[in-house]
C-alpha cells in the first residue's frame, strides 16, 4: 500500500487493541516494527510498494500481547492511539508505541488480505 505524503489515502483498516503486558518495569507489546521515513523503504520486505516508508510490523512474538490482539507480521501501522504513523521516523513510532504511561495501544493497521477481502466483497456485490 503506497502512501505518498500529501496525497489522499484510501485503505481498508483494521482496528487492533493491544493490552501491554507488564513485566517488572517493562511493558511488553510483543511485536517489532520496521520502517519509518528515516529508513530505506526499498529494503522493507513487507511492503508491496518499495517506496512506502510506513511503519510495518516485522515480527510478532508468539503468545505475546500483539498476537493475542491479532496483529500480524507485515501489517502496516497507520495510527497508534490516533497518531499518524504514515509519516513518522522509526524512533517516533517506537516512542508512540512504547509510552510507559499507556498500557493500551490502539492501532489502525492495514494489510493486503484486508484489501483482498474487500475486493472480493466488491465483486460479489452487484455494481
Amino acid at each position, binding site marked *: 500500500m*503506497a502512501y505518498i505524503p500529501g496525497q*489522499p489515502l484510501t485503505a481498508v483498516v483494521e482496528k487492533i487493541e493491544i493490552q501491554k503486558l507488564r513485566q517488572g518495569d517493562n511493558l511488553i507489546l510483543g511485536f517489532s516494527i520496521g520502517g519509518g521515513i528515516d529508513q530505506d523503504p526499498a529494503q522493507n520486505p513487507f511492503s508491496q510498494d518499495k517506496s512506502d516508508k510506513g511503519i510495518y510490523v516485522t515480527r510478532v512474538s508468539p503468545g505475546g500481547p500483539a498476537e493475542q490482539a491479532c496483529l500480524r507480521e507485515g501489517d502496516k501501522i497507520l495510527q497508534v492511539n490516533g497518531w499518524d504513523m504514515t509519516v513518522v521516523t522509526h524512533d517516533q513510532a517506537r516512542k508512540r508505541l512504547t509510552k510507559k504511561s499507556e498500557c493500551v495501544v490502539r492501532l489502525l493497521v492495514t494489510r493486503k488480505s484486508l484489501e483482498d477481502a474487500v475486493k472480493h466483497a466488491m465483486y460479489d456485490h452487484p455494481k
Partner: protein
Amino acid sequence: MEGNGEISDTDSGIILHSGSDSPTTVTKDVTTHTRAMKLKHQDLKDKLEICLLELKKLCIREAELTGRLSEDYPLLPGEKPPQIRRRIGTAFKLDEQSIPQGESELSLVDAELALQMKIFEAARKLCREDHLNKAVRKSRLLQCKREEKKLKRLQEIAFQLRLEHGRSSPLPAFNVAQDLGTSDDSSLSDSVVQDEELTSQSSQLSSGIPCPGETDPSLIDGSYISPPLPLQPLHPTPCPSPSPSLNSTLSLTSSPANDPPPIQNSPWTESSLDQPYQKSKKSHSSKIIPSTNHMLPPLEACLAQSGLPVQLSHLKLSRCQSTSTPSTPEMRMHRQLSLRLSNPESPFERGRGHTRSSRRRLTDYAVSLPGTPPPAVNYGTHAGSEDSNSEHSFASHNSSPCQELLCDFPKQYRSAFPHSSTAGSHGHQAFPHAGFYHNSRHQSSPSFHKAYYNEEMVYAPDLDLAWSSYTQHPPCPSSRYEYWYKDVAVPHHRPQRPLPPDPRLSPSPAQWDLPHYRPSGVPQQVVNEQLKSWHRRSQLKAPRSHSLDRQGAVRLKNMSAQEGTCYQSQRYAEQVTLSPAARLVSDSSALASR
C-alpha cells in the same frame, strides 16, 4: 619443353596443354565445365524464382493494404494479375502513457486495456455503420459484445492490480474509469476504423487529451483560484474551491515521483517493542505536560492524512511570526522552522514537539486577539506566498494539472481556518480541524476511527467547508451544486448522440445522479442498485455526524447527504472500492459500539 608447354588460364581455370598427350584431357575438362555452368545456371534460376515469389507475395500484401496492385508485380507473359482482396485494418494511436514503460504487470495491463478500449470503439463503430445486411450486422454486433466483455475483464484486472499496488501507478484511475467515459465521446468522432484516414488519429489523440480537463472542473476553477490565492481565505463566500478540492482529491490517487526525502535513509531496521526504549524515557522527561498530549489532537496526523502536511502547521508558525507578541526563545525556534517548511516532511521530523507547543500558543493568541483583521490579512498573504512555494514543488513532479490542483486546493482552502478560528476565538475548540478529528473523546469512539481512513480523507475538505461556513458566513450550497453540474456537463451532452448499443457501458455513474438524465437503455435495476448503495453510504455518515454535532458542526448532516451525491458522481473506481469498504466499516463499528 616442360617449362613453356603449360599455360595456365587463370580465367577459366582450364589448363591448356600443348603436349602431345593433352587432347583427351582437354575435352574432358570442357564437359565438366559446361556441366558446372549448367548447374550454376539452374541454381540462379531457382534463386530468381524464389525472389519472384517473394516479390509477388510482397506485392500482394501491399495491394491488400493499399488496394492497388504494384506495378512491380512480376507478370509472366499471359499471366493475369491476381485478384486482390483488400484487407481492412485498423490502426490505433495510443497515448504515450499507455505504452508499457516498465515491467510491471500493471503497466502491461494498462497498455492492453488502452488498446482494447480502441478495439472496442472500432467494433462499436462498425456496428453502427449503415447499409449493412443482416448477417454482417449481426456478426459485428457479436464482435462488439465480445470486445466489450474483454474490455470489462481487462478493466477489472487493471482495477484489481491498482488496488494491490495501492494506486501507486503513474496512471491514476482516471485512465480506467474516466477514459471509458470520455472515450465514448471521442469514439464517435475521432476513433476511426481505418480505411484510409490515418490523419484522423492525430485528431483523436489531441481530442483525447483535453477530455479529462473538460470533465474536471478543477481546471476551470484552478485558473480562477490561483491568482487571488492570498485573498481567498478571507473571502470564502465567493470561492467554490472546496468542491474542486474534493473533486480533485477523488480524481487522483498518487503522483509518480516522490520528492527526495528530507531525511536521509538509514538502513531498514526493525526494533523490538519489548525492550524498554531508552530514548523514549528521555522524551518522557522532556515532555512538559504529558497529559495534554491526549487532550491535544495529533494535528500532524490529520494533516498527513488530509493532504497538507506542511501548510497548517506552517501557517501557524508563520502566524506566530507575524504577530507582535514578545518573542520567546521558543518562538525563535518556530521562525527557524518556518524557513525550512517548503519540505513537507521536515516539520514532523524536526518540529514535532515545537509544532505542538506553537499550536497551543496560537490558540492562546487567538483568544487574546479576537478577530483582528490586519494580522489575518497578513497571515493570508503569508500563507499564499508559502503556498506558491510548495505548489511549485508539487507541480514539478505531478504529471497532470489536476494533481497539482489537488495539492493546492485543500491547502489554500484550509488556510482559511486559523482565520476563522481567530474570529471565533474559541480557544482550543477554535481549531476545527483538530477538535474535529482528533478530540480525545472521539478517539475512543470506534466508528470514528474506522471511518477515518476510509472516508475522512476524501471528505475532509468538504467537512471543513461545513465548518468554516458555519463559523464564518451563511452557507452557500448553491455554489456547490453549480459546481457539480458543471462537472456533469460533459456526460450530460451525451444523450444527444446516438447511444451505444449497450448503454451499460456508456454512462458513468455521474449520469445516474442527474435527475433528468435517463439513458434510454439503462436497466431500472442498475439504477436501483446505485440508489441503494448511495443510500447506504449516506446512512453510514450518521455516526460520524453525531460526533461532530457535539462539536457544534450543525450543518454536517446536510452536508453528508450532499456529499453522498457529489461523491458518488465522482469516480467510478473509487466509488466501487468504497462502498463495500464502507459497509465493512459500518458493520464493524456497529459491532464495536455494542
